[in-house]
Each structure stands twice: as C-alpha cells, then as structure tokens.
C-alpha cells in the first residue's frame, strides 16, 4: 500500500471554495450562493490514488473540476508541483494543462460524436504539441494500444463503440500529453459491473506503468476501497474525514463515514442478518443554506449541543488521519491549521 512518508506532494489544495451565485428578481441580482465546495484542504502525493467519496450534491465533482481550473474557484489555492493554478493567468494555465487531465463520467457525452477516434485522441496533440501528421498518428496508435483499443478502429466514430470502449477512448485522450495528474470523475458510474472491472484494472495498470497520480471521484465505496490508497469523504461541500484506505474502512472516525459505510449493501445475504445498520434520517440540506454549526448536525445520530453552534475544524487525530468532528476534540494530537499539513513522523 502507498506510504505517504517521504512521498512528494504533487497537488496541494488549501481552503478551496467554489461558490455559484444564485440570481433572482427582475435585475438578476445575486441573492445568495450555492456553496458547492466550501473550504477544502488536502494534498495529493505523487503516484498515489486519492479517492474522493460522498453522496450526490456533496461537491465532489465540483471539487475535481475546480482543481483543474475548469471553474474559476471563489477562493483558495491549488498548487501543482508548486505552481499556483487557482489564480494563474490564461497563458500560464495553458502551459500547465498538459500536466493535468480529466476522465469524465459519461463517455457518451464527453466525446464529440462528429469526430473519429483518431481525431478525439489526436486533438490534445494538435493543440499542445508540434508533432508532424505521421508522428501524431504513431502516437495515437500507441495510445490506442495502451488502453486496449484495436488500431483498426481509429477511423470509427464514438457511437460505434460500447460504453466500456468509449471510456477507453476518453482515457486515451487524457493520456495523450503524458500528464502527471488525472482527475477521474466517476469514470465507471455509467458502466455495467463486468465492464467496470475492466476499466478499473486498466486505470491501475496505466498507473503502474506511467507513474500517474489519480484523484478518483466516486460514490461507489467498494470500488474506492479497491482502487484508492487514501480516501477523503465529503459532505455538503466539506471534507469530513481523510484517512489511509484500510484505516478508514476498518475504523471510520466521523459519524457520517460510519453511516455511509453501513449503508452499503454487501453482496452476502448472511451479512444482512446481523448488520446493525445506521439508517440516516432525512436528506442532505441544501448547499445554498447549510445549517449553523456542523454541516452534518441535522442528520448526525451522535449530535451534541456544541455541534449546532460551532463548526468543527478538520484536525489530525492520529498520524495521517484527519477528522472534522467535535467527538474527537480530545483526541487531537496537535491543532493542524490545515487538513494536509505535513505529518511529523
């Protein structure tokens, strides 16, 4: 398993906020904000897979997109190998783009139906490199081999492929410029179980071969357990817990993580007999109007008076384990100003 001690930080995210304005009335004045991502800090180490999990609407996809500057973040800093992305001007950003790429959720919607496979995979090469036509084609073939697509299909269109194959095209496009960091935004959510395994194995194999770093966004906890080295859990725009994978799944510290894990139905009938399921009541509050105090206080089974008053800060309660919960106020080893302050061990 991935060891963070001594590993180099590739991406550092500090207090990232992404708010979307709500406009109303005749003059479309800004009357509020959807706080999709509201103060998120973490690091991604070189060569690791960081899983980002949470329910729909918790801001995980927005977070992934903001990190790549597909949105202009409201506040905060994002550094890729020390270079600031959040406020980078256009020309600098364009220079940084080849290092960071994205694999999208819906392979149907993220591929242009009027372009051939070669055109889709070759587009980033046209934009960012000066390869000759022949060199470009050679690179396209190389990429198609890498993701397991038959070279003969280079001149076909996306609709001629199945879901799993389309996702391979998307991965090939993301790999075209030799990126270091790839955000995978629910890359398998639209695929069937038997095809999911193929794509996940491909992603892992490519990581080993090319030394890639992934931010793997998913709502599928069992798949995240399989692929991720460390896992961050988001709830209503905040990271509530971040821990190494095995520790998180064996001993979740935040009540939300505990509830989330217990809600996952296991493919084993016997496990359902004795399972003491925690069924959360109610729904996730609106990110336009989050509750006072802790964001989770409206649904938390262990809510205390303090939770409705003070928003818990995310703290490191054991080496590498970060939790934002008042239940662990005493466990705090040291008050970390940020979730991802380096661990002195």
């Amino acid at each position, binding site marked *: 398993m991935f060891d963070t001690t001594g590993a180099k930080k590739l991406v550092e995210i500090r207090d990232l906020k992404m708010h979307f304005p709500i406009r109303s009335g005749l003059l479309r004045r800004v009357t509020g904000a959807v706080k999709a991502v509201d103060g998120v800090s973490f690091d991604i180490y070189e060569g690791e897979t960081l899983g980002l999990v949470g329910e729909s609407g918790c801001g995980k996809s927005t977070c992934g997109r903001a990190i790549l500057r597909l949105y202009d973040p409201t506040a905060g800093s994002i550094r890729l190998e020390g270079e600031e992305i959040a406020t980078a001007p256009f020309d600098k950003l364009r220079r940084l783009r080849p290092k960071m790429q994205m694999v999208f959720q819906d392979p149907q919607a993220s591929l242009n139906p009027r372009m051939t496979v070669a055109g889709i995979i070759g587009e980033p090469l046209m934009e960012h490199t000066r390869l000759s036509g022949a060199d470009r084609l050679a690179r396209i073939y190389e990429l198609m081999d890498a993701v397991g697509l038959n070279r003969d299909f280079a001149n076909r269109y996306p609709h001629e492929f199945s879901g799993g194959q389309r996702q391979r095209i998307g991965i090939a496009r993301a790999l075209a410029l030799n990126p270091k960091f790839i955000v995978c935004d629910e890359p398998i959510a639209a695929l069937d179980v038997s095809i999911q395994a193929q794509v996940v194995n491909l992603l892992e194999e490519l990581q080993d071969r090319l030394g890639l770093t992934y931010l793997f966004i998913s*709502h599928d906890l069992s798949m995240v357990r*399989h692929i991720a080295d460390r896992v961050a859990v988001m709830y209503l725009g905040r990271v509530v817990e971040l821990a190494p994978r095995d520790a998180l799944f064996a001993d979740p510290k935040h009540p939300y993580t505990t509830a989330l894990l217990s*809600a996952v*139905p296991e493919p084993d009938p016997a496990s359902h007999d004795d399972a003491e399921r925690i*069924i959360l009541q109610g729904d996730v509050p609106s990110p336009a109007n989050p509750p006072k105090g802790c964001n989770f206080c409206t649904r938390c089974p262990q809510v205390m008076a303090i939770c409705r008053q003070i928003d818990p800060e995310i703290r490191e309660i054991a080496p590498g384990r970060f939790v934002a919960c008042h239940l662990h106020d005493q466990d705090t080893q040291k008050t970390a100003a940020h979730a991802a302050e380096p661990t002195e061990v």
Partner: protein
Amino acid sequence: MPDGATPFVLDVKDLKTVFRTRGGEVHAVNNVSFTLKAGELLGVVGESGSGKSVTMMSLIRLLPMPPAEIRGGSVMFEGQDLARVPEDTMRDIRGARIGMVFQDPMTSLNPVFTVGYQIMEPLRTHMGLSKSQAATRAAELLDLVGIPDARRRLSDYPHQFSGGMRQRVMIAIALACDPKVLIADEPTTALDVTIQAQILELIKELRQKLGMAIVWITHDLGVIAGIADRVMVMYGGQVVEHAPVRELFANPQHPYTRMLLETVPSIRGERAEKLRVIQGQPPILSRAPESCPFRARCPQAMDRCARENPARYDVGPGHDAACFWDFRTGAARDV
C-alpha cells in the same frame, strides 16, 4: 384455492418478446419462465441489455407494440392470461392489481401536476373514490411511505421533493390500489446509498404490513442479498440461474453468476489485488438463440455450447441453472 388455481399469484411460462426494428429483429426475451408466490420477493439481476426490464414490461404490456411483439408464452395472473387479455382488461389490472415503480423518480412523475393529484388519479379511476375520499387515502399513503406532514404535502409539486422523497411518492402511487404484485424496476439505482438504505428499509416494512409479492429488478447484488427471497439471474434475454437467495450466493452454479459475484469488490473482508474481469461483451440478440448466449465469455465453454442452448437443469432444491457444465461433479452434464 378456487377452481384448481395455482399457488402462484403470477405464473410466467416461456415468454418471448421480440422487437422488430429496421435493422432486423432483436430477441430481447427468450423463453423466460418464473413464478411468484404471495408475499414473496423475487430479485432479478443482470447487466444492462440482459432483458430483465423488458421481461417485466412485456408481462404488463407496457412496451410500445409495435415495435415490440409478444411472440409466445403465457402470463397467468388471477386466472387470466395477461399475454392475451384485451387492452381494456389490461388497463384495469395495470396500476391497480399490479403496481409499478420505475428507476428515475424525476421522469416518472408529471412535473405539472401536484403529487396529491398523481396519487389520487389511480384511486379515482380504478377504485371510483370521490375526491375527498381519495384525498384522505392519498394522505394515508404518503404517511405510510414515511413522508412527514402528509396532508399538506399533497398540494406540492414533484420538484419540491428530493430524490428519495420522490421515490417514496412513486411507491405510494404504486401501492394506492392495494396491488397483489409490485414490480420495482431499479427503484434505488438513481439514489444515494444512505437514501437507498432508507427505501430498502421501507420496502421490508411495507412487505410485512401489506403482504404483497414483489419483483425487484436490479444490477446491484448487494441490494439483492439484503431483500430478496429468491433470485433469478438473466443473461442475453434468458434466465441462466434461479435459486433461493442464500443458495445463490453460497453455491452459484452458472459460470456467469460465479464471475458476476467475483467481479464485485466488497467493502469488508479481503481486498483483492486485481479485480476479476469478465472478458468480452454481452451478446447481440439479433437471432433467436440456438446456442448458449454466454459461451463467448465463458471459461467452461465446450463444443456442445455452440450447438445447443442449455435448458434450465435442476441442481438443488428450488435451484436451477442453464449450463451444460456441472460444478458439483466438475464435469459436463450427461443429459
């Protein structure tokens, strides 16, 4: 039991559904047979395109015909063959004696009518209740599915409900006329896990309270393990395995079921380094199957699988599998 009727509320035999398209025929459902007892929950699992939804949609005749066509088989429900009854009769049964819940609660509710109106609609058409009676019953139903402040929420529109709440409304509509059978087509797939857990809990509770039979279509083996009594695994428009739930998970007898169980990672227990993969793609159903639909992806495939389509062989009590390979003896079946 009246006039020698079966103990089954639903008895489907050799159902065959074909879509006639410009590109040729698609044999979506091939000789599917199953039964459903009162109060039982039958889980139907399979990948997309395996025919699980089309089977259920064709037995309540909700498919557009044409292009769909029921080419054979019978669907016995309350002494009538639903594959043959006139459309008027079918209309009285659908939504009243057989309820339906669909996958996406946003698109299956009409956005321009209040939720109350939509719950009252079946009550008024099928049961002939007056407006005020229907309103009272609708409020009871919303209460039953756990929507707080039911009476007031009747006048709300679907967009004022969250996804989980909308699915509860869909369940309330399906339950409105006290159905004998409820067909739930991936009812929790579009929901988050914590909301899914709420809905599963609700269904378990309602089953005990109302005693209806449920057909639950899903691709999620975890959900099936939690709620089903019996499971039917479908592949390529056919039933490939059918067993009581514990038996299926403990002792799968079809190679497809076995591989399916292995490809799903778990959140507890051992973590595999590499995920098991089912190579290849699901079959294209342009012809009536003359061979085993799984043979191209099957590690156990033999010559015989290319020549014949295996029947469903009994492999244990209430357990059958459509495969020429016998995992119990570790040899080809001698039939």
